[in-house]
């Protein structure tokens, strides 16, 4: 009886440890000790996410959707005023494009095809001090809307009062990116590949690991991720190191991805594992590299396992699976206990 209980408890603990191991990397790191500065005067955020994209972190931040020609979508955004004075905020769409590994927005109210489809229910919102207002954004694609992915920005803009003398009127605006794909049927799949890794020592002695990704899917990607170094000299491990920037890559384009490392890291050899993701699309590549002793680039090292799997792990799935494991272990433990008590009646 006691033995059975112990085994059961051990099994449950083992199950819990497994859960920790799976979910620990997903736990967000706390921001560094310092506190973030005071809120700016006004802010903008997206309130709604398409149900099918709920688990996609990009869809929580940007207006991302796929629409058939003739279809319409609606999203709520919130404009907030954290200042002590009421503020008049203009809301309007503006053009944007994706090129040279970046999401680029146009100046002022530059239109494009997407902005002509986009409207807000209240173009001018008076927001009282320390409060917020909700505004509806509607994107209605006409029947002859051109297929492909369209880019834009939904802007919230506020400015200082008109000038009385010589000077500069200050205008600030903040935007939410829009990635709207138009075409019949479902959205094209997002996909990318990681090519060779190149280890470098910069002129200032710092180290860098460069790689290149190719957007082989049909949607724009916002790619960022981590680099882990393992099996180094003396069994050292280092990392994870984060990508220098988030690279926005248009379909069919290639983009360099860089990791900047401290020059004090031993030259190697290391097994470098690069893990990059855009929303739910994740790719991993690893290769054995060695940083050059003098400034310059090492030869490109082909990645060992260019991953072609589409990894879309949903936290709910992980938790559900983990709980299932715990449940199974409990059931097993109970069965052991029953068997034990049957074989050794008390």
């Amino acid at each position, binding site marked *: 009886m006691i033995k059975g209980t112990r085994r059961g408890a051990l099994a449950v603990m083992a199950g*819990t440890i497994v*859960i920790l191991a799976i979910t620990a990397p997903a736990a967000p790191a706390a*921001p560094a000790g310092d506190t973030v500065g005071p*809120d700016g005067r006004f802010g903008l955020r997206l309130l709604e996410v398409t149900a099918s994209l709920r688990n996609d972190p990009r869809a*929580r931040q940007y207006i991302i959707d796929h629409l058939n020609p003739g279809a319409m979508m609606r999203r709520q955004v919130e404009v907030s005023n954290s200042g002590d004075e009421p503020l008049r905020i203009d809301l309007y769409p503006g053009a944007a494009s994706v090129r040279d590994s970046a999401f680029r927005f146009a100046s002022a109210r530059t239109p494009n095809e997407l902005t002509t489809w986009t409207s807000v229910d209240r173009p001018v919102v008076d927001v009282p001090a320390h409060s917020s207002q909700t505004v509806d954004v509607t994107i209605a694609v006409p029947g002859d809307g051109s297929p492909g992915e369209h880019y834009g920005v939904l802007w919230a803009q506020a*400015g200082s009062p008109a000038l009385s003398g010589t000077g500069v009127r200050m205008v600030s605006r*903040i935007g939410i990116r829009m990635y709207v794909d138009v075409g019949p049927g479902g959205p094209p799949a997002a996909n990318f590949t990681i090519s060779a890794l190149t280890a470098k020592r910069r002129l200032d002695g710092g180290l860098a690991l460069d790689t290149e990704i190719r957007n082989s899917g049909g949607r724009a990607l916002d790619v960022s991720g981590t680099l882990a170094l393992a099996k180094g000299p003396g069994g050292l491990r280092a990392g994870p190191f984060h990508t220098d920037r988030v690279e926005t890559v248009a379909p069919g384009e290639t983009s360099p991805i860089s990791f900047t490392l401290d020059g004090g890291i031993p030259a190697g050899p290391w097994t470098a594992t690069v893990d990059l993701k855009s929303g739910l699309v994740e790719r991993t590549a690893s290769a054995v590299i060695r940083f050059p002793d003098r400034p310059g680039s090492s030869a490109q090292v082909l990645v060992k396992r260019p991953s072609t799997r589409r990894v879309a792990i949903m936290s709910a799935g992980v938790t559900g699976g983990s709980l299932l494991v715990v449940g199974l272990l409990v059931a097993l433990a109970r069965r052991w206990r029953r068997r034990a008590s049957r074989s050794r009646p008390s």
Partner: protein
Amino acid sequence: MRKSVLYIMSAVGALSAVAVFGLAGPANADSGDTAVTLDLSGGAVSISVPPSASLSGTIGTTPISGPLGTVTVTDNQGSSSPSWTTNVEMTNFNAPSGSGFSPIPVTNVTYNPGTVTRVNNTGTATPVTFTGESVAAPTVTATGGSGINSATWDPTLSVVIPPTAVATTYTATLTHSTVP
């Protein structure tokens, strides 16, 4: 008795995993457990609106420079890999409409972000000499660690006064644009 110990241990194990990591899980109907879910939704990205900046100078003195007021960008979205860029764009310095005086072109103007005070991000700060009216150029970039981040800077504007300028009021509009 021992059975209940086992149940409690299993419940504690499952619950602590759910509660600590804030993941939603189905409530266990058999034992009446309550799954504790911590769902953090993202905050807003916000920017300050500095008051109008006045610049004054004397004919014959060039360049004229002055502070524009503090600009703060706060990214409270709480994403795992935040990244944003602030662009600046500007109009010409126009003389009062109807005066007939020619404007001071924006190409005579340089925007200097100065020192950027950052919290939980790294990035660049680049001075901008405008190349045309309403031509946007990136000035401050930020790539944050996971979570929230902010940057504050006190930009200054420097204007080369052309010899054709006259003693009158010149006004311009400068726009800071940020897309996270």
